[in-house]
């Protein structure tokens, strides 16, 4: 008993002037979160329109996937995968010049091209793919093409950012060696930087393909092709079992993509 008390007294984190401000901070955070919950969940949601708990469960069970619908959506599923593939490919191609501009070690001018490259990255990373898809659907009409372009615009930011970071972190000795032969800046980039960065770049591209499958699945909800179009149609028609089948198929596709991309990436890293 005495030892237990002594432990409490000697612990500097248990002193009164430490512990009281900390509990006050926790209390303030808790009050803020409870206030937000009261604002949004208690008053912000229209509870009168919510059905009883039995009806909620009935709706939940009506989402049980109708497996007969899956052969019908095999085509759109394949289309979704292809959209992700082409979007990733375009992003990979676009990210090479942008990462060249946005890396501090290779950019031609810190005043003009570096902020330009960073601005591209920030704009692409902070805009949701749905917004890009909306813009391209308005410009190009329905179909998978606006989806591919939206995916490319969305994933070019991540690809360029990681590649620029890899370029900045790569071994400067190789660059100096090539520089000492009198090579131009572009030649230095291709023969000293690219071989060092390439494995990281390839791994990120595969990772991005995995994420893009997930993104491509919802793009159809604004008319940009793929499985999302069928999903939102079935939801609008209240065919909940068919919509459940769409969700089930997307889950299987995403898990499959994740497993395969993980396999390939571990193989790449291992050599």
């Amino acid at each position: 008993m005495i030892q237990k008390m002594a432990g409490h007294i000697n612990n500097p984190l248990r002193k009164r002037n430490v512990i009281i401000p900390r509990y006050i901070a926790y209390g303030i955070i808790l009050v803020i979160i409870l206030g937000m919950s009261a604002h949004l969940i208690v008053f912000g949601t229209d509870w009168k329109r919510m059905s009883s708990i039995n009806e909620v469960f009935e709706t939940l069970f009506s989402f049980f996937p109708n497996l007969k619908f899956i052969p019908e959506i095999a085509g759109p599923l394949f289309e979704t995968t292809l959209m992700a593939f082409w979007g990733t490919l375009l992003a990979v191609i676009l990210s090479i010049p942008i990462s060249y501009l946005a890396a501090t070690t290779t950019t031609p001018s810190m005043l003009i091209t570096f902020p330009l490259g960073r601005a591209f990255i920030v704009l692409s990373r902070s805009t949701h793919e749905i917004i890009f898809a909306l813009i391209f659907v308005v410009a190009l009409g329905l179909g998978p093409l606006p989806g591919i372009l939206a995916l490319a615009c969305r994933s070019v930011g991540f690809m360029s950012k990681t590649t620029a970071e890899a370029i900045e972190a790569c071994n400067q000795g190789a660059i100096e060696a090539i520089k000492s032969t009198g090579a131009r800046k572009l030649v230095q980039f291709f023969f000293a930087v690219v071989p060092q960065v390439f494995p990281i770049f390839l791994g990120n591209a595969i990772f991005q393909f995995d994420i893009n499958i997930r993104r491509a699945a919802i793009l159809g909800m604004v008319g940009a092709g793929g499985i999302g179009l069928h999903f939102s149609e079935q939801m609008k028609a209240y065919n909940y079992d068919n919509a459940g089948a769409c969700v089930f198929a997307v889950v299987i596709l995403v898990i499959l993509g994740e497993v395969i991309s993980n396999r390939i990436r571990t193989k790449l890293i291992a050599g």
Partner: protein
Amino acid sequence: MTNAINTNYQSFKFNQRIRRIIKFGIILGLITFGYWTIIFLDIPIKRMLDMFGPLATMLAERVFPPDLEYASSWKVFISVIETVEMSILGAFYGTLITIPLAWCAAWNITPSREILYPLSRSIIVLCRSLPTLMLGLLLVSLFVFGPFAGILALAIGTIGFAGKLMAEQCEAIDMGPVDAISATGASPLKIFIYAVLPQVKSEWTGIIIYNWDARLRGSTILGFVGAGGIGLHLRHQISILEYHATLGIICIIVILVLFSETLSHFCRKWAR
């Protein structure tokens, strides 16, 4: 002797030629596949190449400049506040569920490797693979129109996103303190609190802040399916073809996300 060297060299040459033919075949196959996918997806290449002129004029005439008067109106401001609140609540409640799940889903410290480990792993994988927007639409039809469905969707997204990262952090800890505390006969919960939590606390704080940042990105668009937040106004303005106001809302979303990204960056630096 020379004969053997010759045959060796010849077989090497032959192998090299076969390898080259295989490589060529793979590249040819990929190009054919790419061409076939363009036909399969029915992509109008010509329209894509002609797109840039009309896209530029459309952006210049109908979309630009953004309608800042609408974007700074009281209605939009309220929905921005709602979006931020949704992201905080979704991340908070999601994290509350994620902490025990991450504990069970880490192979080295899980309380039961037979039942809880596969169960929590499969929950995390399932939550990871559901796209947030689809989930939002499902939950809106299941519950009510409004922020409650959005918060639930964000919480499920949190389980998938943060659960995996947190479990990975748990698997990377030093097992010495765990062995020391379990040697005193402590229960699994006590081992978790006194041996695991102090080791992963700073990493988990970083993950939680990063997760909030990612949820804010998701919550800006959830209103699109009626699950609360600024996406509802976005959808409304698009459906009545008011592209100036749409661009105003997009500007607000971009500013919001940039702000949250900077904030989370500094918070993560401060927490470390």
